[in-house]
C-alpha cells in the first residue's frame, strides 16, 4: 500500500511539473458529494478570492440558518414555508442535535386539565427568572405557547392524551394558578418520555416538505460582517475540506448552548457555543453568560443527572470520610435541602479536600443502605442507569456524583422578535441581518433561572418568531447587498493556522485545563477570591491557545481541526462567563455568591416601597450583563443593559412588578 502511494506521489510530482500549476479553485471532486434536487436553482460558484490553498464555493440564499436543533429547524422551515430560499448549515445531522435529549415536556396554558390562563404562566416565568427576564419577550412566549403547541400537534407530534382526546398536561416546573395564589397548575405537555426526540423528528420530517437546502456536517466558522451588518456565514465542509461562503440578507443563529466549558455537564460533546463565539468575534456582545444552571447530582464522568428522588427516598451524600456532610450544612433538611444548597455544600466539601476519587473532585451518593426491593419499587430502572453510566452496582456501592451544568440561560442578546441587538448610547440597536433563537439566544425569557419545560417552548416560539420577523420585513428573492470579495479571509487563515499548528500543548490538554478551572472556580460555589483566581487562571489558559498542537494535517474529515476550532469557541464563552460572574456582586437565580448573598435591586423589595429612594443604575444589579472580548488579547469588557419591565400590551397583560422570590 505504501509503495503504491509512494509511486503515485513520484508520478504525480513528475506529471505536475510538466503541466502548468493548477489553481486550487479548479480542483473539483471527482464525485458529487451533495444531493441536488432536479430543477433547483444551483448557483454555487467556485472562487479563489480568499484563498488559493482551499477551494472556496460561494452560495447565495435568501436566508441562512446556522444550527439544526429544535429552534434552527423551526426557523428553517418557517422561512421555507414563507417562500424564502433557505439554507440550513449544521455541523450535525438534524436529528442528532442535542434537542433530542430533552425528554421533559413543554409548558403551555392550554387549560385542558383545569381552567388556565397564559397570564398566570407569564407571572410564573417572570418570577422564576428572578425578575431578570425581559417581560415583553416572556409575554410573547407565554401568549404564543398554546398556539405553538397546537401547531406542533398539527404537525404530527404524538402528545399524550386525556380520556377526552385533549392533550394531557401534568404538574411540573414551578407553575401555579392565579398568579401564584391558586395552587399547582398542570401545564406540561409531553410525548411519553421523549418529548425532545419527538419534537426534533417531527420538525425535521415537516421541514422536508419544503425545499430547505441542508448543508449537513458543515462547521460554521464565522459571520460575514460588513459595516455592522451581517451578510452571511462562512463554513468549512468537514467532508471534503472546502470552504463555503453563504451570502444572504438574513442569518439566524441557533447553535445551542456551551455546556462543554465545564468538566461535568449534561450536554453533548458538540455543545460548544459556536454561535456565541461567532457573534463575539464579530464584535457584538453576549448577554448574561454568568447564569448557568447546575444540578447537584450528576454522575461523575458521564454527566447524566441522578434524580432528587434518590435523596427523597433516603439516599445520602457522603464525603471521603464517610460522613453524611449535609447534616452540617442543613441540619433540618439535611439531604433534602434545596438544589443550590446541596450543590454548594458538595462544592465546599470538595474544595476543602474531602472529595473522593483519585483526584478528590467528587462525592458519593449512597443508596445501598436502602432495602433493594424498596429501591426497585420506588425508583425502577436506577440500578441499570447506575451500572451503565457509573459502572457501579447501586445495591453495593455508592454512585460518584458532582454538580453538573445543565443549561445556559445566557447567550446572544435579542429582542422579542428574535433580532440580535447591541446596546449603544443607552438604547437597544438592532443588528441588521442577524437573528438568533433557542438556547444560543437570550431574548431573556429565562432570566436568571430557567423553569422546567420552558426551554422546549422557547425553541419553538422564538424559532417561529425569527421566521415571522424575516418574512414580514423582507421578500424572497431580494437583491443581496454587495460584499467585499475577500470577506472571510481571517477565518480561513485562522483555520489554516490551526490545521498546521505545532506548539507544545494538545487540544485535549488545553480543553481539560479550561474545564477543570471552570468547574473549580466558576461552578456553584462563587466567592470573590475564588472567582478572581479563576479569572486569572482562565486568562492564562486563553493565552495558551497560541501553543496549541494538532496532529492531523489532512483536509478530509479532520476532527482534530474541528475540535480545535470548537476549543477556540469554548474558550471565548468560558472567559466571558467567569469574568461576568466575578463582576456581578449579588446573588440572583442561578448565580449565587457566598460573599453577596442578597439580591440587589433598585429598591429593597423586602420592605415596603414607600419612602425608599431608587438606586441609580450603576449601583444595583437588576440589569443584563453584556460582555465583549478582544479576540487577540482575550480581554473581556463588560457593559450593562437595563431589563425590559413592560409587557407588550399593558392592558392585556400587566407587567409583574419585582418582588422577593420565594416558593
Amino acid at each position: 500500500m505504501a509503495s503504491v502511494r509512494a509511486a503515485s506521489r513520484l508520478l504525480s510530482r513528475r506529471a505536475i511539473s510538466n503541466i502548468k500549476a493548477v489553481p486550487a479553485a479548479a480542483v473539483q471532486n471527482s464525485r458529487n458529494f451533495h444531493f441536488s434536487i432536479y430543477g433547483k436553482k444551483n448557483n454555487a460558484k467556485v472562487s479563489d478570492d480568499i484563498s488559493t490553498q482551499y477551494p472556496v464555493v460561494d452560495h447565495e440564499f435568501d436566508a441562512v440558518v446556522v444550527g439544526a436543533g429544535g429552534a434552527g429547524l423551526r426557523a428553517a422551515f418557517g422561512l421555507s414555508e414563507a417562500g424564502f430560499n433557505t439554507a440550513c448549515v449544521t455541523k450535525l445531522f438534524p436529528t442528532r442535535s442535542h434537542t433530542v435529549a430533552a425528554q421533559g415536556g413543554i409548558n403551555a396554558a392550554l387549560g385542558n386539565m383545569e381552567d388556565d390562563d397564559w397570564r398566570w404562566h407569564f407571572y410564573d416565568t417572570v418570577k422564576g427568572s428572578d425578575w431578570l427576564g425581559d417581560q415583553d419577550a416572556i409575554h410573547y412566549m407565554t401568549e404564543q405557547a398554546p398556539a405553538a403547541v397546537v401547531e406542533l400537534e398539527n404537525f404530527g407530534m404524538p402528545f399524550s392524551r386525556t380520556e377526552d382526546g385533549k392533550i394531557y398536561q401534568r404538574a411540573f416546573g414551578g407553575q401555579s394558578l392565579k398568579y401564584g395564589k391558586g395552587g399547582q397548575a398542570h401545564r406540561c405537555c409531553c410525548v411519553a418520555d421523549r418529548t425532545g426526540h419527538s419534537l426534533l423528528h417531527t420538525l425535521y420530517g415537516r421541514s422536508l416538505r419544503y425545499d430547505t437546502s441542508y448543508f449537513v456536517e458543515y462547521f460554521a466558522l464565522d459571520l460575514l460582517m460588513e459595516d455592522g451588518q451581517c451578510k452571511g456565514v462562512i463554513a468549512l465542509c468537514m467532508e471534503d475540506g472546502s470552504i463555503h461562503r453563504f451570502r444572504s440578507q438574513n442569518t439566524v443563529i441557533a447553535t445551542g448552548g456551551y455546556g462543554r466549558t465545564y468538566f461535568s455537564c449534561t450536554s453533548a460533546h458538540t455543545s460548544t457555543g459556536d454561535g456565541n463565539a461567532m457573534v463575539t468575534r464579530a464584535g457584538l456582545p453576549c448577554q448574561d453568560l454568568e447564569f448557568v444552571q447546575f444540578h447537584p447530582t450528576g454522575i461523575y464522568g458521564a454527566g447524566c443527572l441522578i434524580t432528587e428522588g434518590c435523596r427523597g427516598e433516603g439516599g445520602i451524600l457522603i464525603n471521603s470520610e464517610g460522613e453524611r456532610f449535609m447534616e452540617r450544612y442543613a441540619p433540618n433538611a439535611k439531604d433534602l435541602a434545596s438544589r443550590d444548597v446541596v450543590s454548594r455544600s458538595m462544592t465546599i466539601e470538595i474544595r476543602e479536600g474531602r472529595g473522593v476519587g483519585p483526584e478528590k473532585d467528587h462525592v458519593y451518593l449512597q443508596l445501598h443502605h436502602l432495602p433493594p426491593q424498596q429501591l426497585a419499587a420506588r425508583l425502577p430502572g436506577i440500578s441499570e442507569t447506575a451500572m451503565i453510566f457509573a459502572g457501579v452496582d447501586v445495591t453495593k456501592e455508592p454512585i460518584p456524583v458532582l454538580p453538573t451544568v445543565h443549561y445556559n440561560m445566557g447567550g446572544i442578546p435579542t429582542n422579542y422578535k428574535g433580532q440580535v441587538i447591541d446596546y449603544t448610547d443607552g438604547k437597544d440597536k438592532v443588528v441588521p441581518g442577524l437573528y438568533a433563537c433557542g438556547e444560543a439566544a437570550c431574548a431573556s425569557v429565562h432570566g436568571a433561572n430557567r423553569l422546567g419545560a420552558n426551554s422546549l417552548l422557547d425553541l419553538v416560539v422564538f424559532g417561529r418568531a425569527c421566521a415571522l420577523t424575516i418574512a414580514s420585513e423582507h421578500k424572497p428573492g431580494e437583491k443581496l447587498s454587495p460584499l467585499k470579495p475577500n470577506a472571510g479571509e481571517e477565518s480561513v487563515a485562522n483555520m489554516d493556522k490551526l490545521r498546521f499548528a505545532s506548539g507544545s500543548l494538545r487540544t485535549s490538554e488545553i480543553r481539560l485545563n479550561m474545564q477543570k478551572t471552570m468547574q473549580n472556580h466558576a461552578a456553584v460555589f462563587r466567592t470573590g477570591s475564588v472567582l478572581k483566581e479563576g479569572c486569572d487562571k482562565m486568562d492564562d489558559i486563553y493565552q495558551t491557545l497560541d501553543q496549541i498542537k494538532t496532529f492531523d494535517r489532512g483536509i478530509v474529515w479532520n476532527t482534530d481541526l474541528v475540535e480545535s476550532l470548537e476549543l477556540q469557541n469554548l474558550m471565548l464563552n468560558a472567559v466571558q462567563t467567569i469574568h461576568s460572574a466575578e463582576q456581578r456582586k449579588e446573588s440572583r437565580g442561578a448565580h449565587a455568591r457566598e460573599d453577596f448573598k442578597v439580591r440587589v435591586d433598585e429598591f429593597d423589595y423586602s420592605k415596603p416601597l414607600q419612602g425608599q429612594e431608587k438606586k441609580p443604575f450603576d449601583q444595583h444589579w437588576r440589569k443584563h450583563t453584556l460582555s465583549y472580548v478582544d479576540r487577540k488579547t482575550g480581554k473581556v469588557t463588560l457593559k450593562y443593559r437595563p431589563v425590559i419591565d413592560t409587557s407588550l400590551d399593558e392592558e392585556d397583560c400587566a407587567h409583574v412588578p419585582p418582588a422577593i422570590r420565594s416558593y
Partner: protein
Amino acid sequence: MFFCGQQPLNMFFLRVWVSASKQAVSRKLSMESVLTGCSRASSGMAADKEPLKKAKTPQGRFDVPEEKSKDVLEKFPDNINPVTKEKGGPRGPEPTRYGDWERRGRCVDF
C-alpha cells in the same frame, strides 16, 4: 488499493509510464511491482487468508421464541395509565413525582 479500481487513474499511470520510459530501471521496476501488487490485491484476496471467524452478530437471536427481557418499566394495558387515564404517556411511575422529571433514576429536566 483503490487506485487499481479506478479506470482513469490506471490510464494515467500507463500514460505517464510510457512517457517516462526513458527513466531509470529502478523506477520501471517499482512501477511493475506496483501494478502486479495491485492485480494481486484485487483478485483472490481471501484465498490465502484464514476462514472468517464467527460473525459477531449473534446468529439466530431472533429465532428464539418471544421471551423478551422484561423491561423494568412495564407497559400499561392499551397504553393508558390506570390512575391518571393518560393515553400515550410515560411508562412506569409518574415522572414528576419528585419535583423533577425522572426516568429510570435519571433526571432529565428540573
